[in-house]
């Protein structure tokens, strides 16, 4: 049975002007992908398949908004540069807006859409391992990709001129109330760890499975915690970014506790989330095997991005300037050993 209640209900909540758009989008998707339009908390009563795209308007609207702001911000900077006719040497801000960075942001956005809206989302309602893949992508792949594109700065530039001042002022207000402590590495580390551990407790996790809003909240808190986490490590703009050595320790300690959570999940003799019972069989796994798979994904593959970024930071830490060897001849100098300093 095809049910289209959800997009329309949300449209109503958003106000009159969105209704026609969302209704038509919802109607179109229901027509194109019959599996999509499931209502709140109603999980598919069959194995999810390729047609099960979801078009959660909350996500869609937010994604569109961010994309709009980001592309506006980039073109705004580009037009400014042309006006000022800046020299060929890239300035700090131009480096921030470089093509690889923008690409990183777009790839992150694409992955975000795929992660949250593709059939993976439907699968996540049936397999905790699929859910784990979703979370892992959000926290360790999408978030760093987005952060490398300097979303905060670029989107700020994309805000229409008339409201930019308002934003700047509210930002200053926030600064006064400790907004900056969101850069405190200890706090960020603990927020990330808390998000990771708290949502894996049985009742919040299962509440997310039952209720779409809680589910969105879960994904949003994962994404926000992860964005803060990676911002401290990778932000292309701020001076408050961690040093490379600290970054390695930051990632290493995170890997340790993520590993421990994965281990507990893997070796548990009982499934933690009874809500999956009966659905995992569609995929040929028992509930316990499914949970073991989820734990193992958290234990090992999910830690690969931490390792990769730690290696990058460490390599930066130990690299000499590239022209060093050319400037100095590096062979033993006869008689150098005799001197005493």
């Amino acid at each position, binding site marked *: 049975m095809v049910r289209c209640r959800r997009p329309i209900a949300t449209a109503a909540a958003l106000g009159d002007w969105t209704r026609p758009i969302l209704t038509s989008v919802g109607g179109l998707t229901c027509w194109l992908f019959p599996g999509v339009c499931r209502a709140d908390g109603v999980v598919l009563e069959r194995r999810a398949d390729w047609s099960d795209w979801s078009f959660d308007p909350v996500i869609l609207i937010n994604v569109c908004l961010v994309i709009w702001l980001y592309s506006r911000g980039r073109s705004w900077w580009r037009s400014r540069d042309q006006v000022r006719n800046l020299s060929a040497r890239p300035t700090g801000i131009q480096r921030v807006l470089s093509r690889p960075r923008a690409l990183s942001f777009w790839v992150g956005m694409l992955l975000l859409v795929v992660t949250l809206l593709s059939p993976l989302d439907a699968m996540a309602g049936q397999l905790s391992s699929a859910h784990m893949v979703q979370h892992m992508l959000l926290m360790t792949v999408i978030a760093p990709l987005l952060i490398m594109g300097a979303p905060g700065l670029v989107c700020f530039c994309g805000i229409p001129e008339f409201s930019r001042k308002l934003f700047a002022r509210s930002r200053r207000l926030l600064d006064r109330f400790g907004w900056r402590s969101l850069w405190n590495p200890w706090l960020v580390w603990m927020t990330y760890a808390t998000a990771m551990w708290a949502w894996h407790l049985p009742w919040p996790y299962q509440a997310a499975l039952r209720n779409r809003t809680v589910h969105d909240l879960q994904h949003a808190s994962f994404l926000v915690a992860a964005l803060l986490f990676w911002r401290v490590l990778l932000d292309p703009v701020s001076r408050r970014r961690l040093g490379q050595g600290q970054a390695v320790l930051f990632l290493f300690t995170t*890997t340790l506790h993520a590993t421990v959570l994965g*281990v507990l999940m893997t070796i548990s003799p009982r499934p933690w989330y009874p809500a999956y019972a009966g659905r995992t069989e569609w995929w040929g796994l028992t509930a316990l095997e499914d949970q073991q798979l989820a734990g193992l994904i958290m234990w090992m593959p999910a830690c690969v991005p931490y390792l990769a970024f730690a290696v990058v930071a460490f390599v930066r830490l130990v690299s000499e300037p590239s022209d060093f060897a050319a400037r100095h001849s590096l062979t033993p100098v006869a008689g150098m050993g005799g001197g005493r300093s």
Partner: protein
Amino acid sequence: MSSDSSSEMRLQQTWAPARGFPGVLAEVNNQIIGKRFMITAFVFFMLGGVLALLMRIQLAASDNHFLGPQTYNELFTMHGSTMMFLFAVPFLEGLALYLLPMMIGARDVAFPRLTAYGYWLYLFGGVLFYASFLFGAVPDIGWFGYTPLSTSRFTGLSTDFWLLGLSLVEVAGLTAAIEIVVTILKFRAPGMTIGRLPLFILSLLVVGVMILIAFTVLLTATVLLELDRATNTAFFDVERGGNNLLWQHLFWFFGHPEVYIMFLPATGIISMVIPVFARRPVVGYVLIAAAILVTGFVSFGLWVHHMFAAGLPALSMTFFTAASLMIAIASGVQVFAWIATLWGSRPELKPPFLFALGFMFLFVLGGLTGVMVAVVPFDQQVHDTYFIVAHFHYVLIGGVLFPIFSGVYYWLPKMTGRLFSDSLGRLNFWLTFIGFNLTFFPMHIMGFLGMPRRVYTYPRHLELDGYNLLSTFGAGLMSIGAVVFLYDLVRGLTRGEAASDNPWDGDSLEWSVSSPPPNFGFIRFPVVTGRHPLWQADVTEAPDDSALGRLREALAFEPQTWRGTMVTDATDATPQAIQYLASPTFVPMWAAVGTLAAAVGVLAQAYILSAAGLAVLIISVFIWLLPRESVMRRLRESELPASTGLPVLSSGSVATGWWGMVGFLTLLGSSFAALIYSYFYIRLFSPQWPPSGSDLPNLPLGSAAYACLVVAGVIHCWGMSRFRAAAESSARAALVIGSAVAVGFLALQGWDWSRQNFTHQSHAYGSLYFVISGTLSLLVVLGLAFSLTCLKRIGRTDRRDLANVTLHLEMTQMLWATISVIGVLVFLTLYATPYLL
């Protein structure tokens, strides 16, 4: 020049080792203690080797009764434990302590008294281990001491010897780790950024952090097991809800990184030796550094692959196989970097280089069998056979002992000022190399043919006699090699030619000081501008008219009347301050004697002795940590701040003490992490939590108690900020109120303890509840000691000591902040999760 030589004389007097018999016990200098570490470790190596030979004699023929099963069990336990805990790690620590300051341009390590304390603990722990022979209670539980075999139901005094000896050695390892990490971060010569560290030092930096985490977990595990044995708690007692596999998890969480804790510094040695013999910089410095990091990182996720046969989910096997292979990739990168360094070069086949080559050959073989056993079906086939014995001896002897020999031959001329015989060195190499392969290669085949590990004999019809005889013959050859080495050592020390300062034309800083080096290493600090300071004639010295050059001259021969060295920034190595270093003192030895007495008291169940030992330990630590007025006066009156612009008293991340505290807090953190992991692990496998008959924890009381702890932490942080704002009276008030609130925590926690209808012996839940909250309470008492000593100093000391008081208060605040965070975690674990889960 005459003023130079008189300055040098005075410097030598300041750094002169303590004289006479009792003076030997007071020594704190890193070179002397480092040598003691290495010599002691070598003695244990010989002992472990003798045990191995006895086992090989037993196994030389089938149905042999030379040793008997019980003695055989004892010997393989002692052999494994000796080689792992008493030889490999301590030897590398000793080598590190000896070389580290010289390689980075400092005069000593960061905490000289801690060096001495670590050495005494190591010595006492090792002797305690071997004292078991005198009491006829030799450990026979294998080097991993699996429960339930190691619980009091199945083994007696012998296991206590093992556990307590091991604990002392672990603490020694932890002190060395803090020492190494802080020294590397703070004592590097100006210009020596992290990226210019010699690779041996870089590997030590990574390994230091690994030890801090891994050894703490093992220490926690051994304490839990000893608690089970001595006070009848139930962590590993299945009947009372404990869990045996918990020991395996904690042990291998340590055990797997341990392999790399031994192996990474060994590769560091190789990365030092090979470029010097190839006469060119090492190829791929950055790649090797990255490989070291990856190995260290990944080793913490893999402990379960030692437990393939312990009943893990079938699904997990593929993951472990894949992840284990990652280590092989990282190791492969290093091997290829060395090959590339050697490519087309014409190295002389001197002993250090021969051992490095032998290492590469054997380690690759051991690595290949490692990849084989990482494949689960294969591992199921060869698990607990001699194939595994062959594999890890290839890794440990090939991968650790050969580099150690390489390093010893490489650095002996520096340490002793003598040249050693090349031909005897070569003889030792060939005897060891051939003997090793004869001993261990046949074991691969024996394993395939089904010879099980840890069994004292085998029947004739298995037709393993030939292989075993060959193996025993090879072991004999290896021991002849060791004797040749000893002879070479004695011969070189008595009759060897004097060595020049840089006999191998090495590139790192230790070759710029004389052989043997003076106790203070450098008269003037070196200035570093690249990875190979001695090979860059053009860039080693700072021009005399530069700021650095002037500082260098101002600090030449200085400080003269007290031991000191320059402190630099942790990342970019710019000069920051001058650090006072302790002179010889008996305090570390007394602290170690106290620790030993505490351990022996537990061993003999004479708890009065333990109490006395603890008292001695606590008093010594107090004397140790509280600044002495005579020292403070000397520092206050020093003219160095005026002449150099660098302070002699410092606080914050400039001071080594601050970093030492960070190390200590890391250790506390990982210890509590291990405890909390144990809680959830046991919980996971319990049918009912809390067990029937026990109430759920008292949430209001618990909340009140732990809120006190958080409040105490916040007040201490506030006090710190008041102190920084020069409001000393409110800082004092904060310390008083903070301490009072913390006492409130102790009272509430004590009340909660008295309310329980179970004890730590009732069930595992009770054990966990009492041990975790009890440990936290002990930590709070420690915090109180810090606060009260701080209170005594704020506003009552000379204004010139301000930096030192600040440091004291900073440490107090850091400790309280950590206690608060740990408190929240403990609260969530003990009080909240029984309701939530």
